[in-house]
């Protein structure tokens, strides 16, 4: 099979941008990625756009604004993993030899407040079942019961990620926070306090992918290979699964969508969690990050608290998690989120991450998971 490399990256910072349309954000990110890759109009054969709230033909609008249409443009919704789904399709198409060069991007302008989702039936909204943070809180409670994680650990995740985010000029929140302040922010859904939850926001991210031996491009940075890009959904049965069912079974041994995706990605990349140097994971809420340590097999069951306490997952530790500051610092523009992680990993693997650089990083993993369920796991490797 053909190897796939990242020829260029582009990012529109994550935050709130009054007056900018979702198309504007996408144009900024895609143009930057194309420029870095040295790819001009006519230089790519397909485009894949992830978005959840962008609406009909979002990708077409972005590429139309750039004067670059005619190729297949695929708009993809996969919740929090929309960008990962786009990356899976784009990279697999190149890997299979269908295209030499593709553009993969994600864009979003999120509504403010608790996210309204067309996922829920009218009666569920009327009866209060569309309370997304409540599901996070229930999941956090069960996870804490099973793993020994305390509220202090949840606060420590926020402190860590916000500390990392100080050094990320593209993040929304760039100030450190104290654990006491996290724990005294208002309770949204017990055990989760406001500062333990990420903010929905706006942003865009893009990558140009190219067949590793492609001679069609006239430049680009290269050197970073997409070793795996996997999307999985849920197996039925887990009541607090991201599939958000109304009921589930009492079997607690089902693998989660994240573990399904991670195992596939490790197999595809031909490596395991011990080979990873840096991870960007889904920290929609602080407990979600610690659950991800287990689900991605970064630690043994019930080992997340110890891993966090030992500083393993801080920049400077053995396996930094969310050196970008994570969603807790960047905010979460659903469609752009996964590709924002990929852009961060490319910067890390190139050694271009400035004061948040994970020194000597060669292999990175990006993880997103959300409603569907959709779980995306991407592994990048420096050639």
């Amino acid at each position, binding site marked *: 099979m053909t190897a796939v490399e990242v020829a260029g990256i582009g990012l529109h910072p994550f935050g709130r941008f009054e007056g900018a349309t979702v198309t504007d954000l996408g144009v900024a990110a895609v143009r930057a990625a194309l420029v870095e890759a040295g790819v001009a109009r006519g230089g790519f054969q397909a485009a894949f756009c992830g978005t959840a709230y962008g609406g009909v033909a979002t990708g077409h609008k972005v590429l139309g604004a750039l004067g670059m249409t005619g190729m297949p443009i695929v708009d993809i919704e996969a919740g929090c993993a929309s960008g990962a789904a786009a990356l899976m399709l784009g990279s697999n198409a190149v890997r299979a030899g269908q295209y030499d060069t593709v553009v993969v991007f994600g864009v979003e302008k999120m509504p403010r*407040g*608790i*996210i*309204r*989702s067309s996922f*829920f*039936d*009218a*009666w569920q*909204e*009327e*009866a*209060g*079942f*569309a*309370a*997304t*943070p*409540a599901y996070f*809180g*229930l999941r956090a*409670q*069960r996870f804490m*019961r099973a793993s020994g994680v305390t509220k202090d650990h949840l606060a420590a995740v926020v402190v860590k990620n916000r500390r990392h985010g100080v050094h990320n000029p593209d993040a929304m929140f760039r100030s450190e926070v104290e654990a006491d302040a996290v724990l005294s922010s*208002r*309770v*949204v*859904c*017990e*055990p989760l306090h406001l500062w333990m939850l990420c903010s929905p926001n706006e942003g865009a991210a893009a990558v140009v992918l190219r067949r590793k031996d492609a001679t069609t491009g006239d430049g680009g940075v290269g050197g970073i290979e997409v070793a795996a890009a996997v999307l999985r959904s849920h197996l*039925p*049965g887990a*009541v*607090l699964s991201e599939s958000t*069912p*109304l*009921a*589930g*079974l*009492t079997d607690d041994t089902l693998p989660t969508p994240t573990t399904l995706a991670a195992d596939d990605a490790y197999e595809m990349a031909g490596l395991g969690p011990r080979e990873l140097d840096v991870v960007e994971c889904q920290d929609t809420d602080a407990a979600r990050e610690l659950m991800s340590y287990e689900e991605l097999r970064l630690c043994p069951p019930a080992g997340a608290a110890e891993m966090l306490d030992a500083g393993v997952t801080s920049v400077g530790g053995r396996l930094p998690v969310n050196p970008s500051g994570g969603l807790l610092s960047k905010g979460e523009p659903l469609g752009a989120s996964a590709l924002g992680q990929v852009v961060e990993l490319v910067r890390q693997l190139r050694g271009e991450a400035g004061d948040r650089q994970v020194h000597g990083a060669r292999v990175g993993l990006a993880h997103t998971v959300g409603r569907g369920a959709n779980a995306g796991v991407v592994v990048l490797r420096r050639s």
Partner: protein
Amino acid sequence: MSAPVPVTVGLFTGTDPPRLLGGRCTACGHHHFPRHDICPYCASDATEAAELSADGRLWAWTAVTHPPPGYKGSVPFGFGVVELPEGIRIVTRLTESDPGRLRVDQPVHLVLDRLHVDDEGRDVVVYAFAPDEPSS
């Protein structure tokens, strides 16, 4: 005075006590909720209607402190998961909205909870679980 109306049809009965309208798959034996023609766990179409137990135990709980999108009731309200003896866990409202007054495995039972009053002056109700013993 008009009779209460359910927030949606087909999920629960208006009997005393109320019951949740689920199903059971005769191929894999699992119960499900709400009622499906096709088993969500094994994809068999050998399913039959089954009213679920009105008594269960609390498995997870929280409280919703701000009105979620489209919600027509009051806050805070309790929200959680209750495990029924059929081997099924139900996502549900809880009548207790103070998480500190609930404990894991606490016995709970099904009730109908008033969400709001509709334009015709009728109570709109939804299923919820209430603690068997008054909270201490």
